[in-house]
């Protein structure tokens, strides 16, 4: 026992570190041993093949952040089942596909298929992507749509469901409660922040889609706040996601209430970042005499 094990309901992880969806591909096995991280979440899968957005798809911003609008480039569900799942089946680490869809029906259809596959340990629902049937609003921006979506998917599978919440809402707590009431098991808090950046010399937006999702160290305090709020308001385990660059950042999210932490942008800079962060958490535990990392979850001392 290393003391790094965490349980999120019935999902048991050897440590709290996993990739944020969209920042991890099979090539990462050239740099890290997947068996050393808590879980693996590949890029969101869609039902059919999607080509994604034109370039430039990413840009860097001044204050420690980046904006991306990849557009969920995906090979589709058939390819995912035939190639991606067998690849990850080679590892003992829990495998959590991330699902994106254009409609509730499509979410249901994909999750029903994935839920029936043994190698799938849980499903992350990317409800923070734009819903084409609803003027481009994300499903996760509306509590009643979130509720409807999770309830429908819930009927198809007993596997842990993990809605990934959108931060682009007035009250993330409301959405979190709607997901809890509809049978979600775990919440990922959160997806990227809708943002925009302009090249002042060319006067053009820096990415082709004009707006995109903001990530990187700049957003960490925003995510710490949201994890804290959601932790107070629901009893679901939380996976914190956003701006974690090192072990202390991960600890901060856990103190705010996260049971596990996703790493995204940090892996772009250092492909071994997840392993480094895991080791830094271990070092923090030694310094503070912590035997079980779960002791610190929600352990922020307010007042």
């Amino acid at each position: 026992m290393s003391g790094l094990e965490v349980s999120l309901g019935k999902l048991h992880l050897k440590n709290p570190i996993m990739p944020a969806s969209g920042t991890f591909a099979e090539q990462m096995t050239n740099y890290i041993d997947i068996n050393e991280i808590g879980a693996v979440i590949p890029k969101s899968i869609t039902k059919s093949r999607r080509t994604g957005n034109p370039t430039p798809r990413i840009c860097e911003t001044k204050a420690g952040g980046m904006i991306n609008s990849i557009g969920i480039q995906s090979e589709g569900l058939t390819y995912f089942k035939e190639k991606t799942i067998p690849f990850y089946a080679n590892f003992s680490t829990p495998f959590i596909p991330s699902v994106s869809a254009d409609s509730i029906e499509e979410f249901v259809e994909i999750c029903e298929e994935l839920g029936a596959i043994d190698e799938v340990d849980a499903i992350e629902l990317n409800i923070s992507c734009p819903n084409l049937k609803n003027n481009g609003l994300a499903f996760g921006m509306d509590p009643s749509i979130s509720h409807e979506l999770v309830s429908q998917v819930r009927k198809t599978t007993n596997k842990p469901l993990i809605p990934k919440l959108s931060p682009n809402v007035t009250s993330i707590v409301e959405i979190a409660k709607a997901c809890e009431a509809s049978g979600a098991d775990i919440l990922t808090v959160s997806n990227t922040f809708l943002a925009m950046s302009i090249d002042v010399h060319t006067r053009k937006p820096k990415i082709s889609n004009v707006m995109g999702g903001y990530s990187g160290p700049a957003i960490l305090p925003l995510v710490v706040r949201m994890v804290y709020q959601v932790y107070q308001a629901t009893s679901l385990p939380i996976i914190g996601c956003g701006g974690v660059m090192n072990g202390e950042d991960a600890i901060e999210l856990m103190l705010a209430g996260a049971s596990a932490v996703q790493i995204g942008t940090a892996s772009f800079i250092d492909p071994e970042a997840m392993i480094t962060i895991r080791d830094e958490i271990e070092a923090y535990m030694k310094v503070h005499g912590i035997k079980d990392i779960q002791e610190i979850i929600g352990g922020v001392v307010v007042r």
Partner: protein
Amino acid sequence: MAVKTEILFNKQISKRYFHLKVKVPNKQLFPVQAGQFFHIKCSDGSKPLLRRPLSIFRINEAESTLEFLYLVKGVGTMALAERKKEERLDILGPLGKGFSVAEGSENILVVARGVGIATLSALAFKMKRMNISCFAIVSARTKEDYLMEAELKAAGVEAVFVNDEDGTSDPHHVKLLAETLVSEKKIDGIYTCGSRRLSILMKELACEHQLFAEIALEENMGCGIGSCYGCVCQIEEEESIRPVRICMEGPVFPLEKVVFA
């Protein structure tokens, strides 16, 4: 793997361009192929946040050094330009696929725009070692921006320099130049980098003369190792067009397959 190299020099060679040479601690990252790139952590701090991809300019395996030629343009390359001799520079690579040389190739033409000459001169030096004759058309904004004029000449590359100031870089003119070279020098391969317009011209030329042709593409990159899908180009194959990651399947592609939007 990311390795910490030692900066041997990092000097300004013209108004906008820098030349960087680093010593690699061990030989494990070799061999490095012309056309491949390294993802460079420009500063030890968080500005810039992301690495910057630089194609390899000189590969000196015997002395375990690498050289890069870069244009100082944004936050990343400005930070890199500040780096001093003896500092440690974190580089990730070599990444991507390099240039290939068609079997039986005897005379090749490289067509570069701006800093595109960096990756193409790595190829030109390789060609020289393979006893393949190399001709070049090097296009730049101004005469001040001419890069590698003496070096290419010393390496036996017959290079024609053209620029925007006197209008010699006009696509029509460059096309005539290239056509003349193709017919007079029995060119059997074309390689290009750095300009969309020139690439389209070269694609047409290669198609007309049925020549082997490759292009090295540039794009904003996130991870550089295939995870983020930030850098893609459109590739036409078997009558269908699909987006592929430049960092993984490129940055060098068969020119006839690249779709220019």
